[in-house]
């Protein structure tokens, strides 16, 4: 019998000026979700079930960018994605482009367990969700006022932000604000070079 272990994250790239009460709020959610995983492991639950259970809890809380509280597309909608992988046999399941499935990670698990594929996306994934009877809900459930405000900021800065918690930085010497998470349309010699995450889009050319 080996020793169990669990680790979780709520996203990388944090606003260095995040107010203390927001930091405490985020830590409280992380601690609560960790406890759920710990007690399941103590009672002998399988790693795969614990991973799904904990990510479901993180998706349900609006504080992090997943499920309820997801970042918004340029259209102001939510398109969620998730994946899960079982180290035993390296089985896996993934979904993208979900707009009504309450817990994307559980649909990814069903793709792994109940479909002949490992990845379903957009309308195919939504159809599969209905065929499996998973809980679906109107897209508005996932949209928070805070994120509507963040999207407005991003649009004003003509940027795509990898972590929308980091505000657009005006003074460029504070690189974390300038680089982390904002794409700004730079005009150099009157030609616009689009950037993503503070880098020339060209490095993402393969992408």
């Amino acid at each position, binding site marked *: 019998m*080996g*020793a*169990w*272990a*669990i*680790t*979780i*994250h*709520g*996203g*990388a*790239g*944090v606003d260095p000026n995040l107010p203390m009460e927001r930091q405490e709020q*985020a*830590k409280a959610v992380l*601690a609560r979700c*960790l406890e759920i*995983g710990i007690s399941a*492991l103590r009672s002998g*639950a*399988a*790693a*795969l079930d614990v*991973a799904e259970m904990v*990510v479901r809890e*993180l*998706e349900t809380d609006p504080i*992090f*960018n*997943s499920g309820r509280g*997801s*970042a*918004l*597309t*340029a259209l102001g*909608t939510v*398109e969620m*994605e998730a*994946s899960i*992988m*079982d*180290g*035993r046999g390296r089985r896996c399941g993934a979904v*993208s*482009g979900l707009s009504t499935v309450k817990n994307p990670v559980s649909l*990814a698990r069903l793709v792994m367990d109940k479909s002949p594929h490992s*990845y379903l996306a957009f309308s195919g994934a939504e159809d599969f969700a209905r065929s499996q009877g998973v809980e679906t809900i109107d897209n508005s459930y996932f949209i928070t006022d805070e994120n509507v405000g963040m999207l407005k900021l*991003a649009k004003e800065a003509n*940027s795509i932000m*990898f*972590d*929308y918690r980091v505000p657009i930085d005006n003074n460029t010497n504070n690189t974390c604000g300038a680089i*982390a*998470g904002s794409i700004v349309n730079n005009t150099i010699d009157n030609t616009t070079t689009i950037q*993503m*995450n503070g*880098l020339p889009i060209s*490095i*993402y050319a393969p*992408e």
Partner: protein
Amino acid sequence: TVGCAVVDTEGNTAAATSTGGLMNKMSGRIGDSPLIGAGTYACNLCAVSCTGEGEAIIRATLARDVAALMEYKGLGLQEAVDYVINERLDEGKAGLIAVSNAGEVAYGFNTVGMFRGSATQNGFMEVAIWE
């Protein structure tokens, strides 16, 4: 983005990642989180979940690289995590969490902070944001 990596008392590992993606992203854009080997990976040695700039994580096949360094070069979990964060991201910004089949936990990030929490059977527990 949220994620979890777990090893149970049988030594089996699993990882899961879920996200809304990028704020103001184009409709139809797919990031690293659903891509097995990039944002999520699990095998008999370890389990990994990544977060950050999806395009950089995809190009680096970040999650699979942690497992490959352990499998082919015999690196320990934290060593493998440190290597991929420091050497494989080019100018990209990302973070990841990982467990090994031996009950270890590890994390790494080159961003400003990462929301994270870890616990092991021998009583270790940590919830943190900054370095």
